[in-house]
């Protein structure tokens, strides 16, 4: 059973997760299903894109989009893990004046100076924010908000100045030109390759190289910066390196997707990947898969609806994130919901078994049991306080049929529900847990005797054989619960 789901829907008692090691093989069914679904989606996307006219243009645009999004997604994983998603946002905007400056000096909108300018501004944003926090008494989020908007605004004005001399469209700075990027080609080894492909390809290669080279440093400074510093790794140095890479990747993506949508490329794949896995390496791999799917379907949908490719990619990425929130194999809402339903059904079933067991007990005691039922014998409190809803009746019917299917109970010809031998064993264990817990409460809590039943009714479903043994030992093997009912042996 999933240890995380031991939170009882009935009680709010926090439970120590059991000291049970996982089976040697992890449960990977969810991952396998996920893998198959994604493979099918990838193939379908390829078929979709291949059906458009002018396949050469289509494929290059998809390749550009996927490269750009993957580079952003990979480095974005670390932003997500460091809880610095908005710093990515800030940097992607703040690099603009660096680009504009480099453009003024060199007159080109591509090339190394642009990257250096942007990286410098990226590191400057981080530095300024931290300086404001440490020395200016400005909270970090406020500082970031001020620094990046101011730098971005300065950049916009500088670009407008530049636009008077050359044809530089401020609009494309914001939204990018992915739709036309594949048209501007150059020839390499006899193949027409879009110019942007070179920039983005190098950016992706450098990002991968950075992550491979500093894998261990990125991991430890992201997880436990204190330990990293104590060991002698300069956590701040790694931080600034990461910010420089974010700035570099952002600039490389600028021409393609613009400075606003690049934020989606940075954060959404990493955030989605984080939901799908609990290993760092797989998280990076999944972020690339999400990026490629965004590129394929973003392009296909944008051609179909005749809208911007970059915008559609961001929408598709967002949709993938939404799906992951619901369907992720271990952290998804659906899985959590399913196991809480399973737990609720188990509890209903156990309540039925326990009630049947108590009925048998009372019958065995014979006619000398008279008077009102002891609290222990009363029907479950939920029935008293909450009249059976349709949902509760459905749950009970389902749980009953499960009991019959699993051989814990059987129905007689006249419709009466009876315990089987196995069911009797299960009922004895639950009633034992219940009465042991009542005894424990009586010993250690200042509770009136008529208040111990309900807590025990909640806890009886969580006290397995091991805890029962511990309880019995601590209570010196009591024979009876506080109501005077005998505690059945294990």
């Amino acid at each position, binding site marked *: 059973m999933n240890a995380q789901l031991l939170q009882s829907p009935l009680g709010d008692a926090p439970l120590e997760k059991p000291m049970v090691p996982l089976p040697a093989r992890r449960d990977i069914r969810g991952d396998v299903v996920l893998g198959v679904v994604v493979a099918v989606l990838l193939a379908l996307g390829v078929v979709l894109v291949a059906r458009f006219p002018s396949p050469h243009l289509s494929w290059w645009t998809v390749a550009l989009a996927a490269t750009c999004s993957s580079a952003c997604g990979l480095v974005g994983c670390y932003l997500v893990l460091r809880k610095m998603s908005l710093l990515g946002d800030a940097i992607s905007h703040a690099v603009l004046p660096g680009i504009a400056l480099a453009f003024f000096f060199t007159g080109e909108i591509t090339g190394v100076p642009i990257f250096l300018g942007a990286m410098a501004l990226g590191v400057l944003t981080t530095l300024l924010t931290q300086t404001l926090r440490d020395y200016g008494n400005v909270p970090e989020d406020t500082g970031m908000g001020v620094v990046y908007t101011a730098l971005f605004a300065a950049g916009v004005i500088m670009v407008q100045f530049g636009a008077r001399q050359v044809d530089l469209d401020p609009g494309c700075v914001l939204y990018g030109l992915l739709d036309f990027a594949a048209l501007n080609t150059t020839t390499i080894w006899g193949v027409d390759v879009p110019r942007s492909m070179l920039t983005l390809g190098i950016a992706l290669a450098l990002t991968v190289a950075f992550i491979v080279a500093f894998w261990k440093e990125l991991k430890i400074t992201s*997880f436990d910066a*204190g*330990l990293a510093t104590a060991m*002698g790794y300069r956590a701040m140095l790694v931080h600034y390196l990461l910010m420089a890479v974010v700035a570099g990747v952002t600039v490389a993506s600028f021409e393609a997707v613009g400075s606003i949508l690049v934020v989606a490329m940075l954060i959404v794949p990493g955030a989605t990947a984080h939901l799908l896995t609990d290993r760092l390496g797989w998280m990076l791999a999944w972020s690339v898969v999400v990026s490629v799917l965004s590129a394929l379907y973003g392009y296909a949908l944008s051609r179909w609806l005749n809208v911007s490719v970059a915008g559609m990619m961001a929408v598709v990425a967002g949709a993938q994130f939404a799906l992951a929130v619901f369907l992720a194999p271990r952290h998804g809402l659906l899985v959590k919901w399913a196991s809480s339903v399973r737990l609720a059904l188990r509890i209903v079933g156990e309540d039925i078994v326990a009630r049947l067991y108590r009925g048998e007990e009372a019958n065995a005691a014979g006619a000398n049991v008279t008077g009102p039922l002891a609290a222990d014998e009363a029907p479950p409190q939920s029935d008293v306080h909450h009249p059976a809803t349709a949902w509760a009746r459905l749950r009970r019917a389902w749980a009953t049929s499960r009991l019959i299917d699993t051989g814990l109970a059987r129905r007689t010809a006249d419709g009466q529900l009876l315990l089987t031998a196995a069911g009797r064993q299960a009922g004895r264990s639950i009633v034992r847990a219940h009465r042991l817990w009542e005894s424990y409460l009586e010993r250690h809590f200042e509770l009136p005797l008529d208040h111990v039943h309900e807590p025990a009714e909640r806890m009886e479903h969580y006290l397995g054989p091991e805890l029962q043994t511990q309880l019995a030992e601590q209570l010196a093997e009591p024979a009876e619960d506080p109501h005077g009912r005998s505690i059945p042996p294990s």
Partner: protein
Amino acid sequence: MSVLDIHDMTVAYHRRPVLWDVDLVLDEPRLVGILGPNGAGKSTLIKAVLGLAPMAHGSVRVFDEPVEKVRRRIGYVPQRESVDWGFPVSVLDVVLMGTYGRLGWCRRPGHRERQLARECLAKVGMEDFERRQIGQLSGGQQQRTFLARALAQQADMYFMDEPMAGVDAATEQAIFTQLAELRSAGKTVVVVHHDLRTVEQYFDHVVLLNMRVVAAGPTEQAFTAENLRRAYGGRLSMLEAAGEAVQAQERA
């Protein structure tokens, strides 16, 4: 030769001193408990020694060297709450991080480091959990993982921040066993501790803190009712007022 020599150390957050004029010398390997009420500066003391909290004044020497020079000989267990347990790493990954200090930049842990990490996990009884994601562990298991990581650092001096906070009885026993083993192997272990009942059983040396060192020395000498009363009997209002005055004037 001293193991740890803290001289005239004052630690300040936002210019406000929170730990005043600490002088502390350990001449030989000890199992040291740092005790004091909430807000006494116990964690701050450890962090300042390791360079994780800003030292406004003073100096620290470990094994007669500046801390920067002996970082590889120092192990650290931070407070459990200081990290994100949803981080996508396994128990073994976390323990392997203990070997990073010796590896240095850009070198990956290999077979030897894995072997060492597994041995350390076995020492704290966690060998069956190595593949589990760290968020799926109980509090006690998380703390054992942190201890295994510290063991993998193979340090000569350890600083541990509340390693026994919020753990089950079995884990506390397992942790103490390891501490005693480190101690008998001639290592020095400095532990921030909060449970006064177990002090005499666990530590051979104590430091009682409350914004300054109230008492320090071998347990039987320093752990007295009188010293406890001075450490836990409320803060010194003069120190607080003086701290505020420093902050107000330095930031004006």
